[in-house]
């Protein structure tokens, strides 16, 4: 029997529709889904090769336990009994759980509930810590919410786009389509990026090619120009914000010449950009890791939000700061509370959230103190359960990560492949992925869409939620985890997480493109635009922030003379686990490369393909050179998808004190031609 079945792409968080063609229980192809409102039939290279990862030969099919140094296949009962017995007497602080941006909301909810209600700790995190924790820390005090405040569909109607540290052409191609539509209608685009990225080349009417890590300098300069030229939106500032006097005073104290010198951006470009942004009727700010992944990431976001506020670019369709989460459930796993400081629904630890959930769940002594952030959890816990995430490629300073993981009393890795992280595990659990199970995800703009189960998981692989529920039951908590389907879990989510209250499985089946939360009632259409009347701060006002520039924690010196920055290519995804097992994608970019400016290349007679050794204070890797003027002199770019040339062996694990975000985007390296 041949059937076209709708689903949503498993890669970035745009949430594009595709048809899978299924014959006798096997996916045999995929076809464009022209009626999906996000992508209207088009897909990016990853989206066009969406399902092959499921059929990789080395999918995990059976539970395994390390016996005599070797991972040996065992029954589910043996694996689950062992986990239950090992975790029974563990102290709360000794345990930690890392969830995934790929699990469903139902999975994520069960994972955090297990950690909090059984293990009695808030040591539950997910990769959101490594990509958008600075968003919560930056936008919380400023506008009161760290989610995308608009619908991505509205991007095509704006008349100015400010893109900060984001390369949407390669990372969110279906947003690039909307940006191109806006540009075709005359929108001006400002791109802030040290690299001449594909996005900067295609969209950038103004390319602010700043010195790495000087985002705060540039944003302060833009605000200073706007205020000095009287281009601010006085009415908006008056009615909807607070803190303009302090901000104005601070910006007046800054010397424009110094800002130009620090950022390396010509004054004229700063001026023209500031004017284009301030004069726009509707301006949209999209930002991502290039801004976030610094020790000053939350500072940069505070400043950027202040820029949007003084220009009055908030509270209308298409406006405001849009953080762009990179995974299908980058938003949802956070919504479900897989963060050390938030119970489900962003109910903050320490504000009585634990008491509320004690009542909802019928338990006592839920943890009231924040748990450890992601990287600290890797270092400090003794019993670590890692679900669908691969810190052995994704976390900074990999050599140290390996030492930490190898020394755990118990390391459980639940995944779909034998990842670099799974290789270190004591227990490996095979998970069902994507269309092998049912559940919902929240995509980049809080768009909740449902994935249906369309094929069987390989071997004995099971949904993440099922695995956790089984362990909970064996630990004597069946009543708390009495779920027999993802629907059961979703019904509990609707009770405990108010923004999801009005969303039902039936509605999601019915509405193409899903529903944007908050959706308080079953007849509510969802909420495309935030902040229309008030911000989510306690006083409802936007809080303008005075932000002082601090340089990156590590800058080039004589020993390590180059800046290294990391990022993505369009053909690969994150730690490469899925795309490197997809032959058409891997054939495009089969190995890592280092982008190097022609002048720097010339100085050491480096050509395309020359093998280079990059060394930082933490480690060393090899990769082949790609000579390109995408990078300015003194800057090297290395994609982070390749475990054998692992960018994160080099990166600096120093954290933003406000949020625990590592400084992935800037570190100092030396470069030698490999012998």
């Amino acid at each position: 029997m041949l059937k076209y079945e709708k689903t949503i792409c498993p890669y970035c968080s745009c949430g594009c529709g595709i048809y899978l063609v299924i014959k006798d229980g096997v996916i045999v192809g995929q076809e464009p889904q022209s009626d999906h409102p996000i992508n209207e039939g088009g897909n990016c290279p990853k989206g066009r090769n969406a399902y092959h990862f499921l059929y990789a030969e080395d999918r995990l099919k059976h539970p395994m336990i390390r016996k005599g140094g070797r991972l040996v296949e065992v029954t589910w009962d043996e694996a689950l009994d062992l986990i239950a017995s090992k975790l029974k007497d563990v102290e709360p602080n000794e345990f930690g759980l890392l969830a995934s941006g790929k699990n469903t909301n139902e999975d994520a909810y069960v994972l955090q509930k297990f950690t909090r209600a059984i293990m009695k700790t808030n040591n539950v995190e997910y990769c959101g810590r490594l990509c958008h924790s600075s968003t919560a820390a930056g936008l919380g005090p400023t506008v009161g919410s760290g989610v995308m405040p608009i619908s991505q569909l509205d991007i095509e109607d704006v008349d100015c786009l400010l893109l900060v540290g984001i390369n949407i052409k390669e990372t969110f191609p279906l947003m690039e389509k909307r940006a191109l539509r806006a540009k075709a209608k005359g929108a001006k685009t400002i791109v802030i990026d040290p690299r001449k990225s594909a996005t900067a080349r295609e969209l950038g009417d103004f390319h602010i090619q700043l010195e790495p890590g000087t985002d705060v300098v540039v944003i302060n300069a833009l605000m200073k120009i706007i205020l000095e030229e009287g281009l601010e939106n006085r009415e908006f500032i008056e009615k909807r914000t607070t803190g303009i006097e302090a901000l104005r005073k601070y910006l007046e104290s800054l010397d424009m010449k110094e800002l130009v010198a620090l950022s390396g951006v010509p004054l004229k470009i700063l001026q023209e950009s500031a004017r284009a942004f301030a004069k726009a009727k509707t301006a949209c700010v999209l930002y991502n890791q290039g801004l976030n992944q610094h020790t000053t990431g939350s500072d940069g976001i505070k400043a950027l939000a202040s820029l949007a506020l003084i220009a009055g670019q908030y509270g209308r369709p298409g406006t405001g700061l849009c953080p762009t989460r990179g995974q299908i459930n980058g938003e949802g796993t956070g919504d479900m509370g897989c963060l050390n400081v938030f119970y489900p629904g962003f109910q903050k630890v320490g504000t009585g959230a634990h008491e509320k959930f004690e009542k909802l769940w019928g338990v006592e002594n839920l943890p009231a103190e924040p748990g450890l952030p992601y990287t600290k959890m890797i270092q400090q816990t003794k019993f670590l359960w890692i679900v669908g995430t691969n810190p052995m490629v994704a976390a900074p300073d990999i050599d140290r990560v390996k030492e930490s993981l190898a020394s755990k009393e118990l390391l459980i890795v639940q995944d779909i492949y034998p990842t670099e992280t799974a290789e270190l595990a004591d227990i490996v659990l095979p998970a069902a992925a994507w269309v092998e199970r049912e559940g919902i995800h929240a995509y980049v703009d809080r768009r909740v869409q449902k994935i249906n189960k369309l094929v069987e998981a390989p071997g004995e692989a099971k949904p993440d939620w099922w695995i956790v529920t089984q362990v909970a039951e064996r630990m004597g908590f069946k009543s708390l985890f009495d779920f027999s389907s993802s629907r059961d879990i979703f019904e509990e989510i609707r009770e405990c997480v108010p923004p999801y209250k009005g969303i039902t499985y039936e509605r999601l089946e019915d509405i193409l493109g899903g529903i944007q939360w908050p959706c308080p009632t079953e007849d509510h259409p969802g909420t495309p635009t935030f902040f229309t009347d008030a911000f989510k701060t306690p006083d409802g006002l936007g809080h303008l922030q005075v932000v002082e520039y601090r340089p990156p924690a590590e800058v080039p010196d004589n020993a390590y003379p180059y800046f290294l920055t990391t990022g993505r290519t369009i053909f690969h995804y994150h730690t490469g686990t899925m795309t490197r097992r997809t032959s058409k994608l891997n054939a495009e970019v089969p190995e890592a490369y280092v982008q190097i400016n022609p002048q720097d290349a010339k100085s050491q007679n480096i050509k395309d393909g020359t093998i280079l050794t990059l060394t930082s204070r933490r480690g060393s890797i090899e990769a082949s050179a790609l000579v390109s003027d995408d990078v300015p002199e003194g800057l090297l770019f290395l994609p982070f998808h390749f475990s054998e040339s692992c960018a994160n062996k080099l990166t600096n694990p120093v954290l933003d004190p406000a949020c625990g975000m590592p400084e992935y985007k800037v570190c100092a390296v030396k470069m030698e031609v490999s012998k």
Partner: protein
Amino acid sequence: MSNEMFIARATRTEMLESGKSNGVVTSVLKSALKAGIVDGVVATCPVNGDRFSGIPVLITEPDDLDACAGSLHCSIPNLSRFVKEYLDGSASMRLAIVGKPCDLRGIIELQKRHQIDVDNVYLIGLNCTGTISPGDARRICQEELKIDHRDILYEDIDEGQLVVTMKDGSKKELDLWNLEETKGYGRRDNCRRCEYNIPTFADLAFGKWGTEESKDGGVFVEVCSSKGKNLLAKAQDSGAIKVENASKKAISLRTEKDSKELERAKWWREHDFKPILEMPLADRLEYWIREFSKCIKCYGCRDACPICYCENCLLEATGDYLGVGRIPPDATFPLTRLAHVADSCVACGQCQDACPMELPLTKMFTLLNSQLNEIFKYEPGVDVEEGPPLSTARPEEMRVDDTFLDLAALLKRATKPEKASE
């Protein structure tokens, strides 16, 4: 021999009552299935009753055909790909394929390339004056008609008017030609330029043109082949339909309607092509290079194209023809596609529908196609016997030495000049 033309009516009345269709095509297909003339029917069916979400389906049970009755004007299924890719090119089963002119032309092109069987396939054509992409159709419903598209019972496009009949019986109309001219959206742009409204290259060509003045409805059918004649006869014999000869008036009415649409298509061709043809060559190149630069190498256009069928495509990253890992790819990518496909393009629009960066691919292909076909007097997708001119050589052409990348032959000739004088 000229084709026979009839007005056909279904004898079963449920179809008529549903209002969505006259039931003639469904009746013909049912009787073909029942009589065992075909093993399956390929048609387009709404998903969960959503008329803007039609997908290709294979139907083997006669009663399942009812769900597909009535034309969908706001769904854009890729039927030729469905048959080629997932139904083994009809090699192992006999299929009746129901489609618009472009769907069937795509299938005929694949038949020429031996990707879809000829003998096993019955082509059932439906008149068409254009389709609307689901996204644009929803926008029309929201912004122009102020309706929920799920309340539509059926829709029709005729003489530039979109007429929707709602489930409550009310009707809404919209001047599509005007919308297209003033707001730049409406029917897909390949449809606006399309010169094939009546699929006379099918075995049977159905449509309502010519029945406008008939009191009790019916469908105009042109029998274009003996296969078609057989299908129609079976349906008559089974009592599912009744036919009468089409009157001269009906025939001329149909021709008039067709001519009017062709005029309109011509107007659109001029509208779309003239600005490009008026550009100096350098500007023209720059225009296309700028469009190509948006490409993100998803291969969506190639995969959707009924003409692109090579199993080992030289544009693949595993080949060594095109650089890998970069976007945009070298302009070799679109230009190779253009060289391979342009002579045979049937303007089905599937490439553009699948393009995430909205490159105006159909404009490029149709423009070149129209020029090539004038030179070669070739119409793609209408005659399975007629091979594509750029890959089919006439005997006199076969006498010309092949110089395309045949280095050995080139060298040989260079060392033996006397051969040229033979």
